[in-house]
């Protein structure tokens, strides 16, 4: 095992002084109580390849990262040598607005990309937490999506092509730059959501969407979870096409009340289309016993509320909140949300359901009194009932004390064997983000 001084010096040969993150900023890349020996910031794909070759030769563990916002996701690491951050690979490679596609280096911040696209009234329809800081590479690697997935899907539906550097330093591509492509295997899907365990993404080509001409958000409070979910599913199953329709039990942007269940529905598009949906949605909310509907059209107010929705529940490296994600059939949301709200509200548990997508997020506060063994047991029991409902439960953020008692990913079913073989062939020495992904991959 090398000491960090020697490691610094060797890496400096590859990336130069400016390619090593100053010690003072290393806190941005600590996670699960681990401090990386060094955070390296390659300025070119060539440098990135060289870093991987170097690490491979020295059998050093590499943790691929962008801005580091999702480093807390995963099981406890076995070892952390080098964090390889792509933030200096941040250029727009190719953007032809009339093609409605863009190719970028993976380290570009989502917010920076959105700003470029907005000049042409286009955007990337992914709105994960940390939208201001996170990088495209991180979003794709974690398959982070957010509320807009209702109409646009996740990165799996919007990534057209990738360039990836494997652990041995080889640069390969998958997919292409056009919106439809069935040449060869669809290996984009392998890297999306792989948390850097198969390679480091260096370039991404994405499908874009036009920015809606008009946007509006409606909120409606309900007495019970069941009423709120029923109303929301009614809207999802109607002819309306909401951008998102979420259920929350907390205060957001002044438009909702922590004591009630609130439906938050967003609409966007042609002004007349939005007006029709607004009227329809309000009607359904009122008919279903809402305690009052608020229509938010003012841009500032709308953005305030939207940013709370978008950022909840931000997975983080801080350990004050446990974040749990349930993937369910949408018809099972009412049952699980009600259970969690009933049992958890007194403990400050916050929930948000993405009703159309069948996703339920829980944010469980951690205090000095938290008994992690008990919490792990509670989550495991919840996971069991979720699994019986043919869903799954992932612990997205948790302090190491909880991770010691629970596999954050849960059972994988019979595909685990194939997954392990893929990892073994792509990263034979197990150096890419080791032990943190499913089945300790």
């Amino acid at each position: 095992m090398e000491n960090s001084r020697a490691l610094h010096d060797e890496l400096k040969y590859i990336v130069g002084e400016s390619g090593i993150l100053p010690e003072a900023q290393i806190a941005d890349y600590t996670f699960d109580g681990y401090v990386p020996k060094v955070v390296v910031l390659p300025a070119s794909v060539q440098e990135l390849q060289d870093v991987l070759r170097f690490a491979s030769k020295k059998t050093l563990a590499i943790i691929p990262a962008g801005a580091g916002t999702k480093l807390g996701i995963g099981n406890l690491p076995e070892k952390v040598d080098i964090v390889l951050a792509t933030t200096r690979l941040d250029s727009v490679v190719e953007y032809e607005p009339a093609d409605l596609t863009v190719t970028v280096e993976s380290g570009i911040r989502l917010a920076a990309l959105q700003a470029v696209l907005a000049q042409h009234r286009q955007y990337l329809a992914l709105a994960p937490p940390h939208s201001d800081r996170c990088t495209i590479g991180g979003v794709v690697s974690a398959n982070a999506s957010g509320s807009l997935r209702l109409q646009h899907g996740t990165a799996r539906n919007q990534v057209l092509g990738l360039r990836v550097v494997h652990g041995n330093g080889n640069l390969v591509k998958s997919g292409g730059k056009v919106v439809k492509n069935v040449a060869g295997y669809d290996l984009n899907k392998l890297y999306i959501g792989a948390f850097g365990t198969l390679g480091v993404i260096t370039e991404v080509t994405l499908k874009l969407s036009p920015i809606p001409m008009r946007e509006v958000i409606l909120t409606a409070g309900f007495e019970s979870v069941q009423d709120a979910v029923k109303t929301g599913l009614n809207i999802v199953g109607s002819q309306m096409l909401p951008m998102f329709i979420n259920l929350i039990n907390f205060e957001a942007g002044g438009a909702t009340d922590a004591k009630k269940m609130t439906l938050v529905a967003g609409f966007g598009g042609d002004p007349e289309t939005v007006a029709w949906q607004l009227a329809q949605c309000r009607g359904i909310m009122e008919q279903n016993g809402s305690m009052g509907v608020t229509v938010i059209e003012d841009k500032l107010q709308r953005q305030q509320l939207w940013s709370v929705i978008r950022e909840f529940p931000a997975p983080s490296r801080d350990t004050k909140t446990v974040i749990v994600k349930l993937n369910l059939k949408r018809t099972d949301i009412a049952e699980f949300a009600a259970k969690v709200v009933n049992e958890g509200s007194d403990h400050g548990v916050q929930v948000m359901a993405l009703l159309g997508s069948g996703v339920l997020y829980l944010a469980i506060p951690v205090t000095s009194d938290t008994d992690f063994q008990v919490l792990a047991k509670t989550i495991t029991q919840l996971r069991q009932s979720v699994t019986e409902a043919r869903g799954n439960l992932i612990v997205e953020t948790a302090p190491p004390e909880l991770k010691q008692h629970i596999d954050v990913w849960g059972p994988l079913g019979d595909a685990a064997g194939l997954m392990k073989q893929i990892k073994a062939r792509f990263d034979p020495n197990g150096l890419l983000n080791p032990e943190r992904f499913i089945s300790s991959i």
Partner: protein
Amino acid sequence: MREKEQLIADLSALLGVKNVLTDATALSVYECDAAPSFKAMPDVVVFADTAQQVSDIVKLANKYDAPFIARGGGTGLSGGMLSVQGGIIIALNRMNRILEIDLENERAVVEPGVVNLLLTQAVQSQGYHYAPDPSSQKACTIGGNIAENSGGPHTLKYGVTSDHVLGLEVVLPDGEMIELGGTVEETPGYDLRGVMIGSEGTFGIVTKAVVRLTRNPQASQTALAVFETMDDASNAVSTIIGDGIIPAALEMMDSLVIRALEEAFQFGFPLDAEAILIVELDGIKAGMQNQTDQILEIFKQHNARKVDYAKDEAERQQLWRARKNAFGSFGRLAPNYITQDGVVPRTMLPKVLRRISEISEKYQIPIANVFHAGDGNIHPIVLFNERDPDQCERVEHVNMEILTVCAEVGGTITGEHGIGVEKMDYMPLIFSPADLQVMATVKAIFNPTGLCNPGKIFPTAESYTKLGLKPDAGRNF
């Protein structure tokens, strides 16, 4: 393959004699798909009725070292189901049950032999459909669609098969049965569901699929515009997309197609027109007229000489009838044709269409174009007579040059038909040996013996020579 007679006896014992075809006449039905210029005779065709039978057949195939290939409707356009090394064709048409329809969750569970359109018809009266709609949807099966990651005219807005499949039950090439993905939108781990879709039947055999159902749009509107030049029509396409309108479909036909259609069906299109665009909007009725007006304005700006839009469903069907019958009319143009399937960035359409017409001129081979313009997915129809060896040779050059152009402008060589045997040789145009090596690595994990649908997708050493690349650039995949 070893002991063919014994294999056939074992298959007959497993499935019953009537479910095992060995007679040459019967087998000849299975020697090709809808790309009839490629043919290969299987040794035996079997009909499976259950996933367990598929697994048992695959295990027998392994025992006798026999290649095996799944087959659905046989409508593929790249020779993806050809038994190029002989062996067993496993026909899945009898596994055609819709097992579950769950409209509240917008899901259906189906067997692979379900015909695409029949799934839509099963839910139509309740206001739903299955979104991927390849032109062969009356005959192609969901299993085949999954193997090819099929598209169709409406993928511009709704995406391809991969966007509509949540989970798969698969018989792996060693006979083991596993589930990939699930009934919910995401499952932990690598997205092997996504990797399986579009693997052209080389990673195993899908025996069950959980698919999304899509609510029928409240309204739709279809417009048609006639243009004097291909450039005007293609520029109108980029302008529509660039202006932020995502139509449900945006289709183009060129003069050769227009003339063939007129001869066959008399739609009343002007015979001297260079291009026709058909655009369909769908979604919420309120505000749709605004987008229609915007599109009509764009057509006008690009010198459309005639613009028509459907005032009712009957008129809409009439406008689509032209597009859907296009392929039926090519018989009038030449005895044989090959449909290419490249995709180019939408803004490159004018350039690429000009290049295609130059290629046609150069080799004196007529090429008609009818395609998904909104996706940039071109379908040059290369017209020839297969009995004329000289024409056949020129067609080879035409194919290669068209696909080379697609690759050069940043596109791809197939948007929905797949590589199969038809385009293996052209893979080096878009993938480096290192890229292909990764694909080969994944294939070796799913299909280590190579018995599952062999001889597809990967280029050979000759492919490199054919493309004028150094043979040593080729690896043995």
